C-alpha cells in the first residue's frame, strides 16, 4: 500500500518522464499518446471539482470540452483563411496564438457554465444529471446543423497554433505545455480543496441545510464550482483540438461527457490525482486493447463495471487501500 500523496507524485513523475524518454528514443507516437492522456486528465480534473467536491453529477461536461474545441477551431479557421470573424460593429480577426485562444475558450466556457449552472441548479439529483445531458445534446445538434463551421464534418486546422517563444510543432514541446497546465490546475485544485471555499462546498454537498443555517448559500457555492469546473474543461477542449488539429461535433457528444466521467471513476472520485490515473489508464487501454481487438470497448465496459461494483474508491482507492464513499 502506498500513501496517496506519494502516489500522486509518482504518477506525475511517470507521466512526465515517459514522453521525455520517448523524445530521446524518437518515439513520437508515445508523446502524442501521453499528450492525449494529459489533456483528458485536465478535462477530468475540471469535472472533478464539481463532481467530487460539489457532488454535482454533470453529464454535460462535453459542452465545455466542445466550446473550448470550437473556440480554437473557429479562431484558427479565420486566421488560416484570412477572413475576419466579425466586421460590424467592430472588427474581430482570427488568431493562431494559443494564449489568446485559451483565454477565449475559458471565458466562453465560463459564461456557458454560468448560464447552464443557473438553470440546472434549480433541480437536483436525477433531474440535474438529465438537464446537463440535455444541454450537451443541444450544443451537439447545434454544432451539426451550423454549417458555417463545417457542420457534421468539423473543422480542420492545417498547422498547430503558436505559443510565444516555443516551437509547438515539436510534439514534446506541446506535451510540456499541456503538462505544465495540468500541474498548475492540479495545484489549483489542491488549494481549492483546502480553502474556505472548498470546505464550504464540501459541506454543501453533504449537508446543504447546515450550510444555509450558517448563513451561506449552497446554490451559489455549487454554481461557482460548476463555473470553475467548466472553465478548466473548456481549456482542455482547446488543447485537445490543437493536439488533433481538428474539431468536430463529437467533442460535444454525450459519449464525451460519459468518458470524462469514466476517467474520474476509474481513478477515484474526489481524489487529487484520480482523474489523472483514470485518464492515463483509459488512454493505455485504448491503445493496447485497441491494438489487439477492434472490440476493446467491451473490456473497458467490463473494467468499469467491476470498478463501480467492487472498488468504489477507483484505482487510487485500490492502490492506497482506502476506499471513499459518496452519496
Amino acid at each position, binding site marked *: 500500500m502506498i500513501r496517496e500523496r506519494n502516489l500522486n507524485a509518482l504518477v506525475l513523475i511517470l507521466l512526465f518522464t515517459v514522453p521525455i524518454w520517448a523524445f530521446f528514443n524518437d518515439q513520437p507516437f508515445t508523446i502524442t499518446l501521453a499528450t492525449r492522456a494529459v489533456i483528458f486528465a485536465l478535462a477530468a480534473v475540471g469535472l472533478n471539482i464539481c*463532481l467530487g467536491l460539489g457532488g454535482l*453529477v454533470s*453529464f454535460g461536461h462535453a459542452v465545455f470540452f466542445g466550446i473550448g474545441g470550437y473556440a480554437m477551431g473557429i479562431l484558427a479557421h479565420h486566421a488560416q483563411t484570412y477572413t475576419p470573424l466579425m466586421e460590424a460593429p467592430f472588427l474581430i480577426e482570427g488568431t493562431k496564438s494559443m494564449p489568446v485562444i485559451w483565454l477565449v475558450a475559458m471565458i466562453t466556457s465560463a459564461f456557458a457554465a454560468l448560464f447552464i449552472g443557473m*438553470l440546472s441548479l*434549480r*433541480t*437536483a*439529483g*436525477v*433531474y440535474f*444529471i*438529465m*438537464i446537463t*445531458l*440535455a*444541454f450537451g*445534446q*443541444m450544443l451537439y*445538434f*447545434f454544432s*451539426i*446543423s*451550423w*454549417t*458555417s463551421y463545417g457542420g457534421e464534418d468539423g473543422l480542420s486546422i492545417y498547422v498547430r497554433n503558436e505559443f510565444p517563444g516555443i516551437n509547438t510543432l515539436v510534439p514534446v514541446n506541446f506535451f510540456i505545455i499541456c503538462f505544465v497546465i495540468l500541474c498548475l490546475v492540479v495545484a489549483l485544485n489542491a488549494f481549492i480543496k483546502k480553502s474556505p471555499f472548498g470546505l464550504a462546498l464540501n459541506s454543501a454537498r453533504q449537508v446543504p441545510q447546515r450550510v444555509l443555517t450558517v448563513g451561506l448559500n449552497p446554490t451559489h457555492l455549487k454554481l461557482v464550482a460548476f463555473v470553475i469546473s467548466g472553465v478548466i474543461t473548456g481549456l482542455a477542449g482547446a488543447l485537445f483540438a490543437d493536439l488533433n488539429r481538428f474539431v468536430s461535433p463529437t467533442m460535444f457528444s*454525450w459519449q464525451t461527457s*460519459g468518458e470524462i*466521467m*469514466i476517467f474520474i*471513476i476509474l481513478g477515484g*472520485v474526489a481524489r487529487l490525482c484520480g482523474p489523472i490515473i483514470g485518464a492515463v489508464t483509459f488512454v493505455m487501454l485504448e491503445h493496447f486493447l485497441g491494438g489487439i481487438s477492434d*472490440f*476493446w*470497448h*467491451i473490456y*473497458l*465496459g*467490463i473494467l*468499469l*463495471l467491476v470498478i*463501480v*461494483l467492487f472498488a*468504489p474508491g477507483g484505482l487510487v482507492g485500490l492502490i492506497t487501500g482506502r476506499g471513499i464513499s*459518496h*452519496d
Partner: protein
Amino acid sequence: MPTILIIEQILNGLQFGIMLFLMAAGLTLIFGVMGLINLAHGSLYMIGAFAAATVAGLTGSFVLALIAAMAAAAIAGVLVEMLVIRRLYSTNHLDQVLATFALILIFSEGTRLIFGSFPLFLNIPDYFSGPVTLLGGIEYPLYRLVLIFVGLAVAGALGLLINGTRIGIQIRAGKNDREMIAALGVDISKLYTLVFALGAALAGLSGALVGAIQSVQVGMGEPVLILAFVVIVIGGIGSIKGALIGALLVGLTDTLGGVFLPEIFKLFMEPNAAQTSGSALASMAIYILMGFVLIWRPTGLFGTRL
C-alpha cells in the same frame, strides 16, 4: 402552407412521440419503482431490433419478429437486472450512470461482434405497406398509422395494468413505500425483476417497430434513449401519464419544428440563412422545451420526487 402537409406532419409527430413513449414508459417505471437510472435501456431497444431483424430474416413472419424482439429484450433485461442492476439499487446515481454506461459499451460492442458493423434490414410486412387514404383525401403510410395504434393500445394496456391489477397495485405501492410492500408480503426482488422485464420488453418492441422504418444498427438505441430521458424529465420522473404527455410533446415539437421553423424563419430572413438557422433551432427545440418546463416546474409536469 397546405393543410395536408400540416396534418401529415402532425401524424408523423404523433407516431414519433408514441414510439418514444414505449421507451420512456419503461424508463420511468424503472426509475419510479426502483429509483434507478438505466442508461442501458437503449441497448434493450437495440436488442429488440436485432432480434426482430434476425427472426424476420429466418421465418419471414413479422408477428414472430415482434414476439422475438420482446422476448429477447425481456430476457436480456432480466439477466442484466439479476447480474448487475440489483447491486445498484442502494447506490448513488453516479454509480448507476456509470455502471449502466458500462453496460452500453458491452452490449454495443457485443452486438457489433456478432452482427458486424453493417446495418440489418427489417422490412415492413406486405399487409402494412403502402399508403392509405384518410379523411379529406390525405395519403399516409399505413405502417406509421399502425404504429400509432399499437402505441396507443400499449399505453392503454399499461394504464389498465397499473390501475386495475394486483401487480399494478404493487408497482404503485413500490413507488411510494418499499418497506410497506415488503411488509405486505410481496417479494420485492421478484417485483423489481418483473418491472425491469416489462420495461425491457416495451423497449424491445419499440426497437423492432421503429427498426422497420429505419435501419437496424449498433448505436441506434442511444439517440432514442436520450430523447426518452428528455421525455421523462418533462413528464416528471416516475409518472406514466407524464411519460405519455411528454412523449407526445417531444414528438410533435421535434417533427413540426424541423419542418416549420425554417419556413417561419423565411418570412423575415433570406432563404439560405433561414434554412440554416431554422434547422439549427429546430434541432435544439426539444431541449429548449425541456429547459422551459424545468424552469417552470423543477420536477417536471407530473413529478413529485426531486
